[in-house]
């Protein structure tokens, strides 16, 4: 796992992918921070996080599109899959490398929080909750994106499909409020929505159900990625 992790992490910075991802995240977070906190003379960060969190999810495909599609295109998956290493540890190596780049990018929010804290009193729990929530949403989205990247040889297709899935997950929340839906259906839709789960974190509430939800999504898609690799071997 260590070898794959190090190689993946390096590959983000050998190509422009890692830099682009971080640059876009930094730029957008700067804009949002300027809008919601600086020009608004506010030390309240939850509106910043609610915008930032939804946008970041749409940039994650940039991080995940190449994970497997590129390996397949260059046929380098042959080196990985014929090495004496388990499929799970290869997959986890790749997952954690993407996670690392993601964490580096969103760690900028901590800088903003500290900046605010030096001028005014901030709600520490809200910030901790939001950062924690963003890590979980990111883990879930990266696992989904990695799975999708494993289904195709084309980075573009992987990125577009992942983007579409992210958009669907965002819209689920509004679907649940459609009139005429039976109560139970809208409950299920809401429970499955990647974003409605985030609400608790954004106000500083730590709920085990939500943590378990995000970790399960990540686990399921990592598992599916391993199965898909396994299946290709069997096909």
């Amino acid at each position: 796992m260590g070898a794959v992790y190090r190689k993946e992490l390096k590959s983000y910075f050998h190509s422009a992918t890692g830099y682009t991802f971080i640059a876009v995240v930094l730029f957008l977070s700067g804009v949002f921070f300027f809008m919601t906190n600086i020009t608004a003379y506010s030390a309240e960060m939850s509106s910043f996080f609610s915008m930032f969190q939804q946008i970041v999810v749409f940039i994650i495909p940039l991080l995940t599109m190449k994970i497997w599609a590129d390996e397949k295109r260059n046929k380098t998956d042959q080196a990985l899959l014929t090495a004496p290493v388990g499929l799970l540890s290869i997959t986890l190596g790749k997952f954690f490398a993407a996670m690392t780049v993601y964490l580096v990018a969103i760690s900028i929010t901590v800088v903003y929080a500290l900046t605010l804290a030096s001028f005014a009193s901030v709600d520490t729990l809200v910030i901790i909750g939001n950062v924690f929530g963003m890590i979980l949403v990111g883990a879930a989205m990266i696992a989904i994106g990695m799975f999708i990247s494993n289904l195709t040889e084309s980075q573009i297709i992987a990125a577009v499909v992942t983007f579409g899935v992210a958009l669907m997950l965002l819209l689920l929340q509004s679907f649940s409020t459609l009139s005429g839906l039976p109560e139970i259906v809208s409950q299920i839709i809401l429970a499955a929505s990647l974003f409605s789960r985030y609400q608790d974190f954004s106000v500083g509430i730590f709920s085990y159900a939500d943590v378990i939800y995000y970790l399960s999504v990540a686990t399921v898609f990592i598992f599916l990625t391993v199965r898909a690799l396994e299946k290709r071997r069997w096909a």
Partner: protein
Amino acid sequence: MIEVNHLVKRYGSKTAVDDISFRVEDGEILGFLGPNGAGKTTTMNILSGYLSMTSGTVSIGGCDILTEPNRAKARIGYLPEHPPLYPDMTVRDYLYFIYDLKKVSLRRGPHLQEICDLVRISDVAGRIIKHLSKGYQQRVGLAQALIGNPEVLILDEPTVGLDPKQIIEIRNLIKSLGKQHTVIFSTHILSEVQAVCDRILVINEGRLVADDTPDDLSAKLMGGSRLAVRVAGPSDQVLRRLRELDGVKKVELQGIKERGTVDFLVETDEKLDVRRAMFDMLAENQWPLMGLRNSELNLEDIFLRLTAKEGEQPDAGKGPAGKGARQKGGKRKGAAQ
């Protein structure tokens, strides 16, 4: 070292590998010979654990590739048809990565240096892989397979895309590797297996058509020898006189390839050497002999003969189709050497 039993691989309705069984002993160099699309790559992918088989078993040094994949894979160095290189990495970084990936216990610096010297890539170690020529990329691929000093080397068409000098280098390298490793390598060039291998497996349309040493295989296939003769003389008369010679079974007119001369293909009996008699006859008639060489069988001939043997049609290789294939094959072989 390697045991393959009743290996079958189907892609949907297409059978890529059809019931292949063979064994490879320690330190043997096994040549895998077959035309493109014969199932060589599929077989090698299965041996290396990249693909799984539809049925049958593969065991590497006693470890089944399906039930103990990691132990089996640790014994294999695999160079696929397209070397699995990361274009954006430097050669050194790439080899370090493979070293880590394979969890090699040998000391990293000296081990990698030894491999780089062996395949002669030390001078490009700091360069980015995508900027290397095909020949160097192929060698980096070979270096990758050698990392960890695996007992078994599986090389899929290692000489494709190299220039003639590099081909000879790689062949010699494979030969020297064969002293310490068990090597399986595939090719569609007959002279290559003859030059390098202890044993040849011929595979066609997914089936094993021969499993023999190079000498036995050619002896079996020959059943007489063939001479390519170039004579400056009137073609019909020369043809008639050649046919009258003792020991000549068949003479085929090949046409004019050099101005003022005619080419013939003469098939003779195994035992009898007709060259002396032929020379005397031509000298007597004042028809200068411009060229005389043994015409070796090429891959197409081998397939035609082997498949003909199976179908009990010894003449199948001599029809017009056989001739066409022969000419095409001859050209390709010439280009490859």
